[in-house]
């Protein structure tokens, strides 16, 4: 059982009042809130051990280095990687994708193909466009069905020996669809296509095991995992990371520097140039502890219950138009209300204390395909409740009545 009171009491931000209403935070797909366990660790780091890591001989540097590497170990275990060297700390999901989309250019030439899907976030489209421009490789795009699922037949058609890398989201940030990663990976293996998975929306909502998924790369951001912004993870299989050239040059990533030639450090340092976000990495470790204490299987079960409750309510509204109706969904609900602009709803909900996202959620091509100017998105996290969903639907009908 989830100790609900305890969880909510870890998030002081939930007591914030918006326009005299209690905040209802349904924008978890954009960023999750941060529990005191995490924020305290950031404060404690600066008050008690701030120093640079991996270089000093002094006490502070030593304890910080140890904590920092403890976080790496924690991430490794959390995602089921085989080695700590396979865990690279980055600025976030976007940074992780850019790293691979840049370093992987070494293996691409004109005529090769990169495969993504129509449901990708802009950050899993644009870096690959840049990569394609640079190398002459071609960007191919897998269709999404009207339910909001990856069209597997189309994917099979597009996969050929020319497909060098496939980059797909684990869970769609707009549709909420959970993609069948194992199935997709199996298909890609036929052609030795490398598989990159954007796990931003998955990591805090279900158990992820990169070894079982058998993916080559997996990435996520700490701030969607109840951690701080500005830090994220790139997981990569060791043998591939070894072959990739460095992404950025600087301190930390070198073995030996002379003006004639520099040799690079071993993994993971090779991809961690410069002083990292030390307190952020440590805080990510605390966030993982926070989540593991609750238990990800229970979180998945709880959030699925929230989504089911939400769907029961939304099904009763004849003016509710869902976007993304896959049966295999995470707790994300995008929608429009008949004849009403998403922006109008968003503004009214905001004044009632409800935080939702409105617009295209960084998936313009997906919205365009379905002829939508935008949608409203409610996305849930571990601290949300059925009562909040009930309040949300009361407000939604009030807003709708005001507008019609």
């Amino acid at each position, binding site marked *: 059982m989830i100790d609900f009171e305890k969880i909510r009491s870890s998030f002081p931000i939930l007591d914030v009042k918006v326009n005299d209403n209690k905040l209802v935070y349904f924008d978890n797909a954009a960023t999750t809130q941060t529990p005191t366990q995490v924020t305290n660790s950031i404060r404690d780091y600066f008050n008690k051990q701030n120093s640079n890591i991996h270089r000093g001989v002094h006490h502070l540097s030593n304890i910080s280095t140890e904590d920092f590497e403890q976080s790496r170990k924690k991430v490794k275990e959390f995602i089921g990687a085989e080695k700590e060297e396979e865990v690279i700390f980055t600025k976030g999901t976007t940074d992780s994708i850019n790293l691979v989309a840049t370093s992987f250019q070494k293996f691409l030439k004109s005529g090769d193909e990169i495969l993504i899907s129509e449901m990708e976030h802009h950050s899993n489209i644009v870096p690959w466009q840049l990569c394609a421009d640079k190398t002459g490789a071609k960007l191919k795009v897998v269709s999404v069905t009207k339910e909001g699922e990856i069209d597997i037949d189309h994917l099979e058609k597009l996969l050929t020996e020319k497909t060098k890398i496939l980059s797909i989201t684990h869970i769609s940030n707009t549709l909420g669809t959970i993609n069948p990663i194992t199935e997709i990976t199996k298909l890609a293996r036929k052609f030795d296509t490398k598989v990159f998975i954007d796990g931003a929306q998955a990591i805090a909502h279900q158990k992820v095991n990169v070894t079982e998924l058998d993916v080559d790369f997996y990435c996520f951001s700490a701030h969607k995992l109840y951690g701080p912004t500005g830090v994220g993870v790139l997981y990569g299989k060791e043998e591939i990371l070894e072959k990739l050239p460095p992404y950025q040059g600087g301190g930390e990533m070198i073995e030996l520097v002379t003006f004639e030639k520099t040799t690079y450090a071993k993994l993971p340092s090779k991809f961690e140039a410069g002083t990292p976000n030390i307190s952020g990495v440590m805080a990510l470790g605390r966030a993982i502890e926070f989540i593991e204490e609750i238990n990800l299987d229970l979180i998945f079960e709880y959030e699925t219950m929230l989504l089911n409750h939400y769907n029961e309510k939304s099904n009763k509204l004849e003016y509710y138009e869902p976007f993304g109706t896959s049966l295999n969904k995470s707790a994300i609900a995008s929608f429009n209300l008949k004849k009403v602009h998403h922006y*109008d709803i*968003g503004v*009214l909900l905001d*004044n009632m204390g409800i935080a939702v996202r409105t617009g295209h959620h960084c998936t313009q091509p997906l919205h365009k395909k379905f002829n939508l100017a935008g949608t409203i998105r409610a996305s849930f996290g571990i601290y949300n409740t059925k009562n909040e969903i009930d309040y949300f639907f009361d407000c939604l009908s009030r807003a709708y009545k005001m507008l019609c």
Partner: protein
Amino acid sequence: MTSVEKVQNEIVEELSLFSDWIEKYEYLIELGKDEIDFDKKFMKDEFLINGCQSKVWLYAKQKNSKITFHAYSDAIMTKGIIALLIKVFSNQSPDDIIKSKLDFIDKIGLKSHLSATRANGLMSMIKQIKIYAIGFKEKNG
């Protein structure tokens, strides 16, 4: 007092009668539902205003020495705000528009309800209105 300021004061007075945000928004929504003088052939990208989450098209015409503004949005609330802006700036001289201050938006208490990103859209609309005024002034010599 310029005639722009006069209309602004009238709007401030009118909106101050509302006691809470719901009434104010309901008023805006009603304004947004009203028929407006907008020729749909101007619904083109070149008349689209940047910085708004909802789409806003704006064009201007000169009648004698006054400018009239015509705008449309796909969101009702935005259309309501546009209706207020048009009340303020339409049928005014270029000089009055260029010189006008915009503190009336603060005074009607809408800025606090409009987040920075949304207020940006509002600012872009006003900027575009002023650009039209400057353009007509130049043209008239």
